[in-house]
């Protein structure tokens, strides 16, 4: 299958196997496709054994940070005297990323199964799936699937008769990018403003409702049943060279590209293959100019950098950016980079939670400087100003929202300086009224 395009031969289809297959949405349909075997198997294993299996698989968090999942689970305290919680991050708010949406829309039970296994493994009886408010369709599909899972006995007081209680509660966000940050999400779940929290304490010590908590991304959890069924060795083997990046990864490709969509590749696949073969390359008569490889928060890569990179955590870092959420925004030669960098800055200014000074004021100021440049009133000294602001917005705040605003600005100035200068010298017409 595949959605919206049939799977490409160069893809390694695990999570996306049933994308586009409406029959996979129901409980029975999922079971017919081999679903819930992972959960049944897990319920027969010890918690420690599950954690070890996931550790051995090399699975790393698919939300953006790439932290080893099994290791994260092992941080949870062993005694279960107080409630432990699993929170599934289904906020997918990073611009350029739309993979979790498809997992929830097409294979909701894959996620529920992964949640149930993870909950059991960390000693939690309850999993909250925090779905962003804008995801109306995934919400409807997930709601129906959770209902079915309860009715079929996969969830509830005794999951598949194991005597283990596993509850899954869907929680709807209401429009806030920062709730995709795990501590912001925990605050939001508690009925608060989605302000990120200072760490420590880390979630495994004091997370949601002050209890030990693990937060995992949708894609991470959806991969877990496969690891249990097919084994850690199999998953580890899905790797093209770098043993630190294993398994398959869904890449959301969007922007100026022939076939935007999600592509599932083995870690280590050349970015060039993804761009030109799977996603069909640039629009007719166009060439790529820039790629933002990991959602809007990571440094912009030039075409050359992107084409030389291997797609895994380390491969992208080697070319000066980050894998992030693997939302790949592709820009061709028609793109006004200054305008798009401004648009990203505006996004972060809109989404800043208002806690940290550098972020609250810096994102807005950065946006204004870029507006001034776009209106044709920019000056040479604005480069230094933008770089100074970015430096002070990097590594100085509670979360990385302001770092994320700075990343495209700094990389944009480094790599596309002439476009800024074109606005400053008047060789490019203003694209915005004076501010």
């Amino acid at each position, binding site marked *: 299958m595949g959605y919206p395009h049939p799977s490409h031969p160069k893809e390694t289809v695990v999570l996306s196997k049933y994308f586009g297959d409406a029959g996979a949405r129901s409980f029975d349909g999922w079971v017919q496709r081999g679903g819930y075997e992972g959960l049944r198997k897990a319920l027969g294993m010890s918690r420690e054994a599950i954690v070890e299996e996931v550790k051995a698989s090399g699975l790393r968090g698919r939300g953006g940070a790439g932290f080893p999942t099994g290791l994260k689970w092992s941080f949870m305290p062993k005694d279960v005297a107080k409630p432990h919680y699993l929170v599934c991050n289904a906020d997918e708010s990073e611009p*350029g990323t739309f993979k979790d949406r498809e997992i929830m829309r097409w294979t909701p039970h894959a996620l529920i199964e992964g949640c149930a296994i993870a909950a059991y493994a960390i000693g939690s009886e309850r999993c909250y799936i925090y779905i962003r*408010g804008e995801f*109306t369709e995934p919400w*409807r599909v997930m709601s129906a699937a959770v209902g079915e899972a309860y009715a079929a006995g996969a969830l509830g007081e005794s999951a598949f008769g194991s005597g283990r209680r596993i509850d899954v509660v869907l929680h709807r966000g*209401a*429009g806030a990018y920062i709730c995709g940050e795990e501590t912001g999400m925990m605050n939001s779940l*508690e009925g608060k403003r989605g302000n990120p929290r200072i760490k420590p304490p880390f979630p495994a010590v004091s997370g949601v409702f002050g209890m030990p908590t693990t937060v995992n991304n949708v894609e991470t959890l959806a991969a877990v049943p496969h690891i249990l069924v097919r084994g850690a060795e199999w998953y580890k083997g899905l790797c093209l060279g770098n043993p630190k990046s294993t398994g398959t990864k869904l890449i959301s490709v*969007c*922007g100026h590209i022939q076939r*935007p969509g999600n592509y599932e590749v083995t870690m280590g696949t050349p970015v060039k293959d993804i761009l030109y073969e799977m996603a069909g390359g640039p629009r007719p008569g166009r060439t790529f100019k820039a790629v933002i490889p990991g959602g809007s928060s990571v440094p912009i890569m030039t075409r050359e950098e992107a084409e030389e990179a291997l797609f895994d955590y380390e491969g992208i870092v080697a070319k000066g950016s980050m894998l992030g959420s693997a939302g790949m925004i592709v820009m061709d030669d028609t793109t006004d980079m200054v305008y798009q960098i401004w648009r990203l800055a505006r996004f972060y200014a809109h989404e800043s939670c208002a806690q940290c000074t550098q972020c609250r004021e810096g994102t807005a100021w950065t946006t204004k400087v870029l507006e001034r440049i776009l209106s044709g009133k920019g000056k040479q000294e604005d480069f230094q100003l933008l770089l100074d602001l970015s430096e002070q917005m990097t590594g100085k705040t509670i979360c990385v929202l302001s770092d994320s605003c700075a990343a495209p600005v700094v990389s944009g100035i480094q790599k596309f300086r002439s476009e800024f200068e074109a606005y400053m010298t008047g060789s490019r017409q203003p694209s915005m009224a004076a501010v």
Partner: protein
Amino acid sequence: MTPRSAHGGHGTETVPHAPVFVGETRARLEGLFGKYPTRQACLLPALWMVQEERGWISEPAIEEVAGVLDLTPAYVKGVVTFYTMYHTHPVGRHFIQVCTTSPCNICGAEDVARALVEKTGCRELGATSPDGRFTVVEVECLGACGFPTPILVDDDFVEDVTPDKVAAILERYT
């Protein structure tokens, strides 16, 4: 019960405010209490319920929610204003959110937004059409970047919208 949109249209806030959390809605809210260790955690769901019933969240509704969940109105207001999907003012019968963030932006989202403003008669982003039928707002990323330009009309997600498709889409909403 037909699922209601979480925006606009179907209900109106009255003066004075008539309680939202009575009867079935009250029961729905109370049904959530067991799913969270605190009442406060039911705040976002409760606000969604208010918006489903009344189309927006008025100050008296904030006071009601505060009372039901044992919070203060100021606290609830701080939360309401944090989340952009809660309306603190009345909106049109149909609430249209159009994504103009970078991935959609480079694919022509601003043209879609302009077409929506023009065809609905809203005159500007954020405004409601004079006939009260539509409100069009720009939103930051709808999480469907592979289908530019996505829009949300009430709870209906519409992908791959281009300016020429706008008129036909609007016809479905009266």
